[in-house]
């Protein structure tokens, strides 16, 4: 049976604004299927974003949504979660939004281990503003601001999240569509701050500058570089050169922020 996405999309919002072959639409569909699997209620679920092409996502969804300031999704989402801890809170946004201007909010949300999910749609570029390099642009790649090749090393978003204290970290790709919803389901079920990085494609501002002849070439690259966690365990570092490990990369249990904060409130009221 065809999946009924319409049930979760605000009437009259399609077609969306994303370019032909932009992976953001594939991620949005994965998120919708995950929400359907989890049975999350529209009135009890907040989807929060900053600014960017990726951050346009909440506008399409018929949930409680917040489209905030550039890089501030995690900050606004923290406010929502503190005021209404019973709500499901999901942040979505791009690599620029989450790791450049919003990098600070991102790492501190990881450190706090507040119970929400953050989906980073990593297309290695500032898509919306015409292709300036982001902290996730690979070394040597071309962007409008690195016409001779990017001298900077790129962030590994998953490693950044693990290092900063996120308690669930997973990675998928826009090519591996069936895996996207599975990772998001697990992330939302995890009690604590969960990060799902989806390697994405921006054919318009990244692909064209970096010698990808088509969307298909970009998709094939995602297909070729992805190695599932289990397969990676059996591979040597040489074999893993140029590959990216996908699946659930990290998971641990640690006290969750809203629960700890409730205890602070109790103490302040004179209990213990």
């Amino acid at each position, binding site marked *: 049976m*065809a999946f009924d996405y319409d049930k979760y999309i605000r009437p009259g919002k399609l*077609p969306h604004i*994303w*370019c*032909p072959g932009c992976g953001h*639409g594939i991620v949005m*569909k994965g998120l919708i299927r995950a929400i359907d699997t989890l049975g999350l209620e529209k009135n009890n679920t907040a989807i929060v974003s900053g600014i960017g092409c990726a951050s346009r996502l909440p506008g399409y969804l018929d949930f409680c949504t917040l489209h905030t300031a550039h890089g501030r999704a995690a900050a606004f989402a923290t406010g929502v979660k503190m005021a209404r801890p019973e709500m499901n809170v999901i942040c979505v946004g791009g690599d620029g939004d989450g790791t450049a201007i919003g990098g600070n909010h991102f790492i501190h949300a990881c450190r706090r281990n507040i119970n929400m999910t953050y989906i980073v749609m990593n297309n290695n570029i500032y898509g919306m503003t015409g292709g300036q390099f982001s902290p996730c642009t690979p070394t040597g790649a071309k962007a409008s601001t690195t016409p001779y090749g990017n001298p900077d090393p790129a962030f590994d978003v998953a490693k950044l999240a693990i290092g900063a204290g996120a308690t669930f970290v997973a990675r998928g790709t826009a090519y591996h*569509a*069936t895996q996207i919803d599975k990772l998001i389901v697990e992330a939302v079920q995890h009690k604590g701050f969960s990060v799902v990085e989806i390697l994405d494609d921006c054919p318009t501002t990244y692909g064209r500058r970096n010698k990808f002849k088509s969307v298909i070439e970009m998709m094939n690259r995602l297909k070729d570089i992805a190695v599932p966690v289990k397969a990676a365990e059996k591979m040597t570092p040489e074999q893993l050169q140029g590959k990216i490990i996908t699946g659930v990369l990290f998971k641990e249990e640690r006290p969750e922020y809203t629960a700890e904060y409730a205890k602070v409130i109790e103490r302040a009221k004179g209990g213990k």
Partner: protein
Amino acid sequence: MDKKLPTIEIIEKYCKGCHICVEFCPTKVLEMKGFVASVKNLEACIKCMQCELRCPDFAIKVTA
């Protein structure tokens, strides 16, 4: 194998002609007709749903 053919609906006003469904269909059921995807060989469809899952534009629906 189940002989009943699926229905593949392509919503032309949503399709942006990215070629993803055509390229990654394992049995080459789909083709581009001008700027939009279209069904070329329905008999070959194995109902894997990959086209529907990967279409970034909500433009293709497979009902098995």
